[in-house]
């Protein structure tokens, strides 16, 4: 069979997060990802890790992601010129999902922005952090400070038991609202905890000093509800939750409207524009995009992977799968991809060309599983 070994034999030096020794000790299978050696799964395996996160709580090391602090007078206003979100309206300790856009309205990266004091804390994709830093330094005025937080780790605790578990360490964290942040102390060290995540479940992300990460991770893993979760389950969880993966579901060739991310464009920004690619994006918002990102549910058991051709029932090509695989909680294959606008309506019959054979599928509403974010 095709060589099942997944670690790439390459000379490139990989970076490691502060939790690297713990991953190895836990028996993780390590793979190269975005320049880092990261755990793809632990002893339990992807399927069990995925289901455990949906039933109890999973701990993810997401320290490879970029954490960037923006400061300086008026930085929120100048930062807003790079993204379509309404950041001016963001109250202190509130966070927003937004997008760096290019002049054509294409997506340079997707990110989380949290208002802290007069500045912002950004969490950006690992593979994009150098490009994002260059973009910020090139586009923000001299008065702005752009500081990558290199000595910070990032942990995510996700799942229905996450609030119960984290409350044992951070009093009152269970009352933190969805997409809000709190500055807290853990063992006397300053941390930022946000109620957010990438799984469709309730959960938290905790930004903490890198040298405090292993100790805190060990304590969380000692809790009976918590298992360590690798990148494999992180991917299947976010796919079932209908969330985009940069470089796959969104990139410089896709606009927020095509990507079905119009909700990230603030009301005021729709009127005022003033973000890169605004003319294109706002025209697509009025007239509808030529193609759209949709959920796709294959009718058989065969998964349709990224790059699978999507055809109409007559066999004419209408798009491509951008993420696809097996959804453990759905109990069958799930996919998302872009299709021509005439085929984007929910319930539309399509065909997926897997290994040269057309297989029936349907356009479905995202997410594949109901979101269970904390709503107070």
């Amino acid at each position, binding site marked *: *069979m*095709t*060589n*099942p*070994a*997944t670690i790439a034999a390459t000379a490139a030096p990989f970076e490691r997060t502060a939790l690297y020794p713990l991953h190895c000790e836990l028996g993780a299978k390590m793979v190269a990802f975005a320049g880092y050696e990261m755990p*793809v*799964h632990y002893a339990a*395996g*992807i*399927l*069990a890790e*995925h289901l455990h996160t949906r039933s109890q709580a999973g701990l993810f090391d997401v320290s490879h992601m970029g954490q960037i602090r923006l400061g300086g007078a008026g930085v929120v206003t100048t930062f807003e010129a790079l993204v379509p979100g309404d950041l001016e309206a963001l109250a202190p300790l509130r966070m927003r999902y937004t997008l760096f856009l290019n002049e054509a309205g294409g997506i340079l990266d997707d990110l989380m922005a949290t208002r802290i004091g007069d500045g912002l804390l950004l969490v950006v994709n690992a593979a994009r952090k150098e490009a994002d830093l260059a973009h910020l330094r090139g586009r923000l005025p001299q008065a702005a400070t752009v500081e990558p937080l290199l000595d910070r780790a990032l942990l995510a605790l996700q799942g229905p038991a996450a609030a119960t578990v984290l409350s044992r360490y951070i009093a009152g964290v269970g009352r933190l609202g969805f997409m809000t942040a709190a500055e807290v102390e853990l063992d006397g060290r300053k941390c930022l905890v946000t109620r957010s995540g990438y799984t469709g479940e309730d959960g938290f992300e905790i930004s903490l000093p890198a040298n405090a990460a292993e100790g805190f991770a060990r304590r969380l893993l000692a809790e009976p509800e918590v298992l360590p979760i690798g990148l*494999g389950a992180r991917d*299947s969880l976010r796919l079932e939750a209908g969330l985009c993966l940069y470089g796959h579901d969104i990139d410089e060739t896709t606009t927020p409207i095509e990507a079905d991310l119009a909700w990230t464009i603030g009301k005021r920004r729709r009127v005022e524009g003033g973000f890169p690619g605004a003319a294109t994006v706002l025209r697509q918002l009025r007239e509808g995009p030529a193609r759209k990102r949709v959920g796709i549910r294959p009718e058989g*058991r*065969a*998964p349709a*992977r990224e790059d699978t051709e999507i055809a109409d029932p007559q066999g004419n090509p209408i798009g491509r799968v951008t993420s696809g*695989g*097996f959804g*453990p909680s759905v109990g069958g*294959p799930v996919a998302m991809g872009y299709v021509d606008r005439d085929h984007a309506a929910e319930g539309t019959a399509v065909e997926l060309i897997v*290994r040269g054979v057309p297989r029936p599928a349907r356009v479905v509403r995202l997410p594949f599983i109901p979101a269970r974010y904390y709503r107070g």
Partner: protein
Amino acid sequence: MSLLRFTRDHEWIRLDGDFAVVGITDYAQSQLGDVVYVELPEIGRRVDQGKEAAVVESVKAASEVYAPASGEVVEVNDALAADPAKVNADAMGEGWFLKLRLADAKELDGLLDEEAYRKFVEEQH
């Protein structure tokens, strides 16, 4: 006693008279992780040694399964459609893929015996 042979691509083949049963090895299933889908050939299809005979998919990825020897497919393991996890639970037994009527049993001479395969897997690490 039946003759058991292995390929360097991590398939096994067990000779039983003019017929042979084919599957993937325990090492292969452990590397793949949770198997969620198996695509088996049609009965009567001719397969050639070293060429694709089936597809096995884990949560992570799809992998081709190559025929350890040439022949005609006379039976497939239909139970894998409903329960592909049998490949993980019992790769060398209930997780078998297909049964061939061999074109030429001599093709098995070029394959590895159990001891040679064990050494081959060790060298992979």
